[in-house]
Each structure stands twice: as C-alpha cells, then as structure tokens.
C-alpha cells in the first residue's frame, strides 16, 4: 500500500527521470505569459518559453493568422530587443506594426531570394541575443534544419515563429507549441479564428478554442462559438447570406482537419 507522501515523492522522481530522457528544455529560461487565459492554462509553466520555437499552421493567408502572431510577438517583445522578419516572398508590409505598439526602429526585414538563405538568415537571427522574435514562413523544413533552428533559439533566447501550411501536421516538430488556425465567421472588425493546440511539449495538446483578435485594440479574447447563432436567431434576419453564415457557425467547432467551406 502506498500512502500519499510516498506517492507524490514517487511521482516527482518519475517526472525527473522522464524529463532527463526526453530532452525537455532547461528550467532556467524566462516565461512569457500570452495573457490569453485559455492558452496560458494549457502551456507548461503558464506561458511561452523564451528560447523556443512556435509553429503556426494555417492553410490560406488573409484570415488573420499573422494578426494573431503579431499579438503574441507584442507580448514577447515587451523587453528591449528587435523583431526580425525573414521575407522571401517580399510581401511583408510593416505599416500595421507601429499601431500595434512596435516602432519601426525595432523591426528588421531580411529579404532573401532562396530557401537556403532563408534558413541561414533565420538561424543567424535566432542565435543573436538582441533578437526577441523571428518570423519565417516556410513550407518545407527538414527535421535536421528544424532541429538546427530550435538549437539556435535556445542559444539566442528569442522566440521563433514559423508560419507553415496545414499539411505538415503530423510531421516531426521541434517546436515547443504547434497551433492549427482556421478561419471562422467574424462579426464587427475583429477577426475570429479557431485555434487548436496540436502539440505542446510538456503540456496537454488537443484543446481548441475560438478566438477573436481585434486589430485596433490588440485584444485577443476567447469567444463562445454559439454566441453568434443566438444573436441571429433572436433578430430573425431572413437575408440569405447571413442565414448561411449562421448555419456554418452552428456546425460543431471540433475537428481542425475539416477544410473551411468555400462558397456560401
């Protein structure tokens, strides 16, 4: 018969042994809370770890995934330091950054022309102690290169944010956290999206929520997916497009693998 104290001691010892075996990162790194209660609850030690990678999987562009990453980056860049964007497509437009709170003098844009240079630049930037956050949009990433980036992040102490397509879900990942983001019908100017934590090192994966990111105020909040149906049902609006959207919102917001519907 094992009593309570013995049990807890045993658990602690087992945890230590497991953490030795699985290269869980060292305890000494700073934790950055995301200030999104639901997410912080799920993450080990209640926040993002400095010196780690975050993988954000999104299929298309245009529904606000970068806006969400920007809000996370603002949390990460609270301390002095620089944000580096490695831009291969030459599409990144920094005009929205100062309004979010990041002045231009803390932003560096690195324009590369091929994937090899993109990887090298991201590696160098992550290694630098003065860099707080690195953004890279990358489709293919070999495990060897992924590991290299995660080691670079460990050395530099910044947070690397990798934006990748949905299809790499299931492939090996060296990121501390992997999210899957999908668009959701929005009301007002805020952007709604479905966030699912598909991997979380040391924490629980599988949770998903619907978030609303407001670009103007920078607030990220959790919303009730059924909220919208109640609103439309009570107003009794008969317009076809609105009814179509309400019907979509009613579909259970469960699996992330279902592709978003195209025409209404």
């Amino acid at each position, binding site marked *: 018969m094992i009593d309570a104290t013995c049990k807890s001691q045993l658990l602690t010892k087992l945890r230590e042994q497991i953490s030795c075996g699985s290269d869980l990162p060292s305890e000494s790194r700073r934790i950055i809370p995301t200030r999104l209660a639901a997410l912080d609850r799920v993450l080990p030690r209640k926040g993002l770890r400095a010196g780690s990678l975050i993988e954000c999987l999104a299929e298309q*562009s*245009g529904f606000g995934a970068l806006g969400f990453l*920007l809000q996370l980056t603002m949390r990460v860049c609270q301390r002095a330091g620089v944000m580096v964007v490695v831009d291969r497509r030459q*599409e990144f437009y920094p005009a929205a950054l100062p309004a979010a709170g990041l002045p231009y003098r803390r932003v*560096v844009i690195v324009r590369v022309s091929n994937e090899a240079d993109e990887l090298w630049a991201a590696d160098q930037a992550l290694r630098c102690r003065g860099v707080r956050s690195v953004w890279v949009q990358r489709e293919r990433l070999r495990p060897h290169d992924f590991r290299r980036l995660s080691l670079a992040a460990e050395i530099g102490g910044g947070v690397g944010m990798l934006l990748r397509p949905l299809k790499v879900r299931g492939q090996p990942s060296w990121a501390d956290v992997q999210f899957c983001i999908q668009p959701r019908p*929005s009301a007002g100017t805020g*952007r709604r999206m479905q966030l699912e934590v598909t991997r979380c090192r040391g924490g629980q994966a599988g949770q998903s929520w619907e978030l609303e990111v407001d670009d103007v105020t920078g607030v990220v909040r959790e919303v009730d997916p059924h909220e919208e149906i109640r609103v439309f049902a009570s107003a009794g609006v008969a317009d076809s497009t609105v009814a179509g959207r309400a019907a979509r919102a009613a579909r259970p917001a469960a699996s992330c693998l279902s592709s978003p519907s195209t*025409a209404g």
Partner: protein
Amino acid sequence: MSLPEASAVLKRGLREAAVTELHNPAVDLAALARLAERCEQFSPMVGWQSMTPRVAKTLTADWGHEEPDHLFINITGVAHLFGGEEALAQRMVNAFRTWGLSIRLVLTESLGSAWALSETNDATTIIATGELEERLHDLPTWTLRLPSDTVAVLAHLGVKTIGQLRLISRQGLAERFGPLILLRLDQALSLAAEAIVPHRPAPNFAAEYQLEVVTERRDVIEWVLDQLLERLASALHLRALGAARLSVRLDCVDSEPVQFEVGLFRPTCLPSHMRKLLHLQCERHLWSGPVERIALSVSQTAALDDRQSEFFADEDQELNQPLTLLFETLSCRLGEKAVLRPVREPDAAPERAVRYEPLVGGQAAGVALRKQRATAVVSASSNSAVSDRPMRLLLKPERVDVMALAPDGPPASFHWQNQRYVVTRHWGPERIETGWWRGNTVRRDYYRVETDAELRYWLFRELRSQRWYLHGQYD
C-alpha cells in the same frame, strides 16, 4: 559691370588711385588655403564653405561655389585655451588685421547660422546658446543658402524672412520645395549636423602586399589580409577613427582582379571584428588564377565615438554588440540591400509610405537614425487610418475583375487568379490621393472587403481608369 563702365562711374580722383587686377580664382583659392593654414593656430579644424557634393552641383550656378569666400573654424572645446570666446574673437580679429585683412566674424552653434549672420552683420557677433532662433528670425531667406529660384518663389508667396518661413508647416515645405529647404533650415538652427570639410584632406588608409611567390591558397591570402588589417587598424587607432567600409582587391596573374567590399554597421578599429567579416566575405569569392598582390583600403571612415550609429541609443547597450554582429554578418552574405529597416515616409500612397533603408553602409546607418526622428515628427499628426493597413502587400497591385452593384460603389464580387470571391462585408472607401506636384500621382478609392470564406483583402479602384486592383491581404 565691365571695367570701362566701372571706371566711368568712379570720380576722377578715385580713378587714378584705383588698382585693377585680373580675377584669378585659382590664385584666390591658394590664398584662402594659406589663410586657412594660418588659422590653424586657433583650431585644427579649418575649412571653407562646406557642401555635400550632391548639393553643390545644384547650387554652383547660383553663388559660384568654386570661389569660396568664407572660412569656417571649429572652436568646440578650444575657446577656454584662449581665455574665453570674447578673447578668442578679439585675437582672431587682431591676427587678421596684422595680415592686412578685415573680417566679419561670427561665433555661433551651427555652420548655417554662421554663414547667414556673417552675410548680414558687419560687426563681430557672438551668439550665446539659446539666442540663435531670435537672431535668425528677421534675416532674409536667401541667407539660408537656398537656390535663387526657391527664394524667388518664397518671396512671391510673401515669405521674406526666416521667421516667416518657420511658421509654414514642415510637411508643406518638403512637398513643395523638396528636402533641401528643411535641411538648410535645420542646419541653420543647429538641428541637423553639418560637417566642416577640412582643407587638409584626410589621410588615405590603404596598405598592400606584394607576394614574392604567387599563390592560390586561401589560408595564405587570409593571413596576408590579417597583416594588412593590423597595419591599418593601428593607423586608424592613432587618429581615433573607425573604418565604416573596407575594400579589398586581389590582383591575379593573367586574369581579372577580384574586388569586394565589406560594410560595417558601426565604425570600428578593432582588427578582430573586421577580420571575421573579411574572412566571411573572402569565402564567397573565387579567384581563377594565382594571386600576386593584395591591397586593403578603408574606403569610408567615421569618428569612433559616433553615438548616432548605435542601434539602441539609451536603452539596452549590451544588446548593441550582438545586434551589430548579426547585421554585419547578414549583410555580408546576403548583400547590404537585403537587411533593411522600415522608415515612415510622409507619402499617402501605400507602396511609398514605407521606405526600406539598409542597416549597414557606413553613413547610411547614422543618417538613417537621424532621418527617422525627423520624419517621425512630421507624421505624428497624420491620420489614424494607418492602423487599417494590411500585413501583406503585393509588390505590384494586381488587376482584378470586379462586379459592383453601383458604378461608384463597393465591390460585390471579384475574380482573382482564376477564382471567384463573393464579398460579404466591406469597409470604406478610403480615398488616397497624392499631390499632383509629385509627378507619379495616385488617386484611388480603397476598400477593405471580407469574402464569404472569411478572408479579407484590400482592393482599390483607380479613379482615372475606373479599374480595380488587389493590393494586399489582411492576414
């Protein structure tokens, strides 16, 4: 006027006493140089009318810049050696009198104001700190060293003094007359730096090594570069200068010489720092034949304690060093134009509202930081719609086929890249027009649209052609 006319004007008595000599600008310049040398007893930094070469080209026709007639002496930190500024001024006037010249002397904070006041004041003037603005207030605009056509236009608009000029908004001035007018105003008021070009040219930092035995081996060449670097570093250190750009030339036997440059984010005279970058850059180049001579020179120098080129001036100093190394390493491999910092431009057209400046490049680094402060002041009052900008902007706006319900109304659906998007919501229009005097005008009505797939795009209708384009995505 010509000589016969002049002598006709002079009264009889003066005509005999008048002395005529042929005008020889070269002789004048030589005399001015000798005078500058003599002035070195007051301060080591003496030069004459200093202009950056680019500006000088446009202004030469106006005042004959090849014939300077002002001497600028930098007396920062020197006045106390002569017993104060008044004593120094008196000494200068006496010295010139012994050389047979009478001078107009102005002691002030900036070159621009010195020029302006010396042109308008006869007596020796000493301006205390803080008095500058009121002394310059009533001076005519031409004393700011502006081109004569600018001065004429300003006079036509009723602006005759510097005080009146300052009342006009800076943005308006910049749009109408270009950046020169603001530069001159800032230079006069000591808000922008202006350097005296010393009449003695700065020493040339260059070293070369002739190999007795030609070689293709990389390690030998790198060793030679290290030796040359040590030599240059000690020369730089003696003069408290830092290298901002290095250039290397490898002369090969029977083939084209290999040349490359290394730009530095911060001027440095530490050989270890420069060695790393040189080796990195060296690895990227191949030479086709054996190398017989290696030459290393510093193509751009800057003062070592130049605080302006620090990335973080006040906050975290300790982050500066790793960041400097990162920018230099990235620029070395990817090119200086690949590592950029955005700078806000006071331009309404979205593609021009952000300018990208290279971080590494000697002068550019320091200037970038300064210019940024200036433009930040200009656009502080600009519209709040800047927060409505997308995160992705296409390099060139792409043409889309749009169906709108009203000819001037918002889009109802659009076709882009062989796909049809139905618009469910829209925000706008936001009209963006740039001034006709800028040349390339932009007149667009921008709409933020949300499609039925919950994607948001930034479309605009070009007002002249009534065509629709897609400019960005709100990601």
